[in-house]
């Protein structure tokens, strides 16, 4: 590793630790580093605006700031923000970026910001933490569906996730190139078979292994919950709580032959799937995590015993024109309350 790149990686590791991002993952249950929060901690306003060609810009001044194109995917918005933070933390001057692809021929400053961004958003400790929760091995990351779900949890694109695994020496370059022959749109299609499907929205697959996590989807993403079901013994997952929490729920029964993992074919146990969408995005994006809770019980028995319960939390992110939530809070905190 070249010295200037090593410096950038070291700086990113420091920031991951000192900004509280590490604690947010390891103690609070989040699955990603939020570059908006890190900028907020530095008093650097981040503004999203619809732009044509620019992905982002960093402006160095008495108060430095980051401008990001609001019309890109969440993954690209986050990566751009981390890249501009790289310019900030590495002491660079004002700069603008219209691409996040940096090769060995790029300017030194861009290479530094690029490595900083990757080491900030995908440090080894974070990857290990998320993989442990999800019971994923390095081997299972070679499955495009798993890789896609990992990318959602990290908050960066499928492609960026694949390359970050190469940078962290977890996957060979050749394997990454193979994985990139498959595009997320195909993966989403397979996940939502038979469901209403919009190519631009992400599809989160949630199961038992997400219990301890706080996930951060966008308000218009679709959430597919896949749980074990004992419907044959008369148990049903109750969905009332989800509705009262503000989700629209649409059950889906997958044909049994779709279950490819023979270990799942336990007698009397099948899989139940539900697709959740958020009813009112403005309510969901108020900053507080929403609780996704479901119980499996026999519906004809009042207060019947609960066979199983599932609960996880989702803190929805709204990405649109304007300052980030944390930057708005800082703006409002300067004005004396009337």
């Amino acid at each position, binding site marked *: 590793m070249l010295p200037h790149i090593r410096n950038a990686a070291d700086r990113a590791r420091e920031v991951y630790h000192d900004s509280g991002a590490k604690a947010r993952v390891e103690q609070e249950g989040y699955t990603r580093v939020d570059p908006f929060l890190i900028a907020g*901690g530095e*008093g650097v*306003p981040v*503004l*999203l*605006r619809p*732009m*044509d*060609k*620019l992905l982002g*810009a960093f*402006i160095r*001044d*008495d*108060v*430095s*700031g980051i*401008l990001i194109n609001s019309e890109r995917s969440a993954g690209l918005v986050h990566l751009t923000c981390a890249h501009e933070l790289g310019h900030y933390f590495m002491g660079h*001057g*004002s*700069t*603008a*970026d*219209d691409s996040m692809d940096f090769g060995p021929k790029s300017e030194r400053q861009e290479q530094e910001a690029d490595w900083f961004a990757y080491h900030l958003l995908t440090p080894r400790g974070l990857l290990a933490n998320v993989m442990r929760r999800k019971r994923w091995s390095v081997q299972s990351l070679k499955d495009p569906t798993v890789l896609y779900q990992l990318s959602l949890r990290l908050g960066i694109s499928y492609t960026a996730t694949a390359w970050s695994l190469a940078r962290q020496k977890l996957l060979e370059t050749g394997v990454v190139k193979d994985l990139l022959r498959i595009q997320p749109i195909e993966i989403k299609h397979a996940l939502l078979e038979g469901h209403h499907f919009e190519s631009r929205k992400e599809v989160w697959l949630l199961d038992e292994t997400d219990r301890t996590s706080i996930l951060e989807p966008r308000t218009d993403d679709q959430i597919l919950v896949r749980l074990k079901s004992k419907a044959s013994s008369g148990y049903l997952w109750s969905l009332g709580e989800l509705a009262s929490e503000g989700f629209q729920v649409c059950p889906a029964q997958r044909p049994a032959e779709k279950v490819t993992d023979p270990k799942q074919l336990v007698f009397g146990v099948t899989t139940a799937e539900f697709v959740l969408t958020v009813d009112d995005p403005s309510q969901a994006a108020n900053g507080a995590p929403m609780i996704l809770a479901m119980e499996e019980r026999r519906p004809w028995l009042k207060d019947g015993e609960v066979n199983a319960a599932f609960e996880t939390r989702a803190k929805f992110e709204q990405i*649109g*024109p*304007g*300052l980030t939530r944390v930057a*708005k809070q*800082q*703006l*409002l*905190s*300067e*004005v004396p*309350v*009337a």
Partner: protein
Amino acid sequence: MTSHDKDAQRAEMAERLRQSREYVGLSQEEVANALGLSRPAVTHIESGSRKVEATELSVLARLYRRTLEYLLTGKEPPPQGPEQLAFLARAIKGLSESDLDEVARFAEFLKHSTKTSR
């Protein structure tokens, strides 16, 4: 000055206030809270049907990172010349006019910001 002129002026100021609020992405409700007003009062201010007090205007100028003069008259000192934003020309070939404007406008926004003491 005729009352008609006054109405026109007020309508233009109302529009500047609305656009400045939308630029930072605050809701009418958030602004109402900052001013100690009801949300409908902010709606009326932005439609030109309610007069804005001087004290309110100075809070809004602070909140939106705009000068009082701009909010009142729409006049502002010309933004930084291209020499300060030369990095843009160097950075990217074929950058659209509106992208350049966005960066210049954001640079102005930052100029009116003060370091937050944390």
